[in-house]
């Protein structure tokens, strides 16, 4: 028994570290490959020399294709940041009205929100596409953004958090003459830092990596987000350019990894009540 105990901890660390290596390895390989000359990608793990030519190639738009990758990064940022801000804003506003002001019938609204979260998105794909088309929103940003401006999931987790705030705090502010808007911005917003960080992180991740929807509603190369442009590029003309592909994949991965590392504290704190995000 004592000998078994002694071996146990090192064994745990060994298994965990091996798992961690497997988990990080694809990233490591992706980043290394993006700096390799094409001959070494499949044959060597460590590059014998580093090159920036893959990045130069992709940022110059490929040869003869003129795919604007720099522009696509800007597009991705536009269709990511606008919904993220909007989801936070309307999430707080709606949750405050339902949970703190308790408008008449708020329980029905909360049930609707839960149904919305669990509803299969596949049912909306075709009619939403047709709506965007009829409203002239194909091939521009609004078509890619509009359906994501309000997220029931964000309302739900704000409700979960707002439940925990004592009413006396808000009553005190009201007696001091604070308007409801002021209470949201001055009291609720600073108190819900963790929740807001989680909403921002998940929404940013989902919108930045979004693929199917912008693939459907936008065929204009100049408006494409990075994910779609890169996917079409990889499946199309640049099948045989692994180094360039990995440079693109690195560009697509980097922003969310950075954001995650900045927000990771909140991620772990909030996991217990973010319960419903697939």
């Amino acid at each position: 028994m004592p000998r078994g105990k002694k071996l146990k901890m090192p064994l745990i660390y060994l298994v965990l570290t091996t798992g961690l290596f497997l988990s990080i390895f694809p990233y490591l390989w992706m980043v290394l490959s993006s700096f390799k000359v094409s001959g070494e990608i499949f044959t060597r793990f460590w590059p014998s020399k580093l090159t920036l030519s893959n990045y130069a190639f992709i940022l110059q738009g490929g040869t003869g294709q003129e795919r604007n990758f720099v522009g696509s990064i800007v597009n991705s940022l536009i269709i990511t940041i606008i919904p993220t801000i909007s989801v936070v804003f309307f999430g707080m506003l709606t949750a405050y009205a339902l949970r703190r002001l308790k408008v008449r019938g708020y329980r029905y609204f909360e049930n609707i929100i839960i149904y919305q979260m669990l509803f299969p998105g596949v049912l909306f794909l075709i009619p939403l596409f047709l709506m965007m088309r009829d409203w002239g929103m194909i091939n521009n940003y609004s078509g890619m953004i509009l359906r994501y401006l309000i997220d029931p999931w964000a309302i739900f987790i704000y409700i979960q958090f707002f439940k925990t705030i004592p009413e006396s705090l808000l009553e005190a502010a009201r007696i001091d003459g604070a308007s409801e808007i002021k209470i949201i911005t001055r009291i609720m917003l600073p108190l819900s830092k963790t929740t807001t960080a989680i909403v921002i992180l998940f929404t940013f991740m989902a919108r930045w990596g979004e693929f199917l929807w912008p693939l459907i509603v936008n065929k204009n190369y100049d408006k494409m987000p990075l994910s779609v442009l890169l996917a079409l590029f990889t499946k199309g003309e640049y099948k045989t350019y692994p180094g360039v592909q990995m440079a693109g994949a690195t560009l697509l991965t980097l922003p969310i990894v950075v954001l995650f590392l900045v927000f990771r504290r909140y991620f772990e704190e909030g996991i217990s009540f973010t319960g419903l995000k697939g």
Partner: protein
Amino acid sequence: MRNNLVGRKRATQKNLVGYLFCSPFIFFTLVMWIYPFLWGIIISFKKWNLISPRQTWVWFNNYLGVLKDPLLWLMVRNSIYFMVVFITLTTITSLGLALLIKQIPKKYAGFYITGFLLSYVSSGVAYSMVFNLLFAGDGLVNNFLKTVGLKVDWFINPRIAMASIALIVCWKFTGYYGLFFLAGLNNINPTLYEAAVIDGANAWQRFIKITVPLLNATFVMIIVFATITSFNLFTEPYMITNGGPMNATRTMMLEIYHRVFALLQAGYGSALAVVSAIITFAFVWGFRKLIERDDLYDA
């Protein structure tokens, strides 16, 4: 009396402000949920090529077409195959991860959790591209396997292509699901284990009799997530296999996309979407019936 009146006035005012705050959400729900939902159902009863003004009612013909198509059952089979491999693998890896992390000091646990979560934040397009090259016929993984005399046609062999996709999706979700299991483990009262030790239960018995039943809620949640993931699979097969080889990785999402946006069969695609939602619901419902317990150790 006066107090009561003021109170009622305040309540009305609260309601007014509240509805004002809610109104964007109500408007959004009507326009972006209820309207498209109803329209989607209506389209599924029509024959329409998305462009022409002619939309003929064909009632249940689209549904009959969907149900009669042998491809539907192949796609359902593919998704079930994916689901079985994915749920088995991820449960082992993420529960294992949580059990191991639970045993190490907190100050190191954070480091490992962060590391494992990195794969979760990767976007579908990016990691599909990476694994497509890693698992290629002459890719790094096969070069490594060659040293022990093996070669696996990960995405080329129709019998294992779907399992390979399940493997890479498992790579993505291990850390994330592990975190849920860890939260579940942290909710288990440690005195239960102490009592079991006193009663002479060994580690395996404690795991089966205490850990597994008390993680029921986490299991249910993860299996529901995994089921929805299985039937909604799109980006990975689109990027890597395009539904091939021999339709082995074709999913309902791929088929809906193909039918509507390549073949312009809006009605058929909508009917397939409805069928796919019903199948997903049926599986989620079935799994919950099968494994969900809410009366654990109540007595």
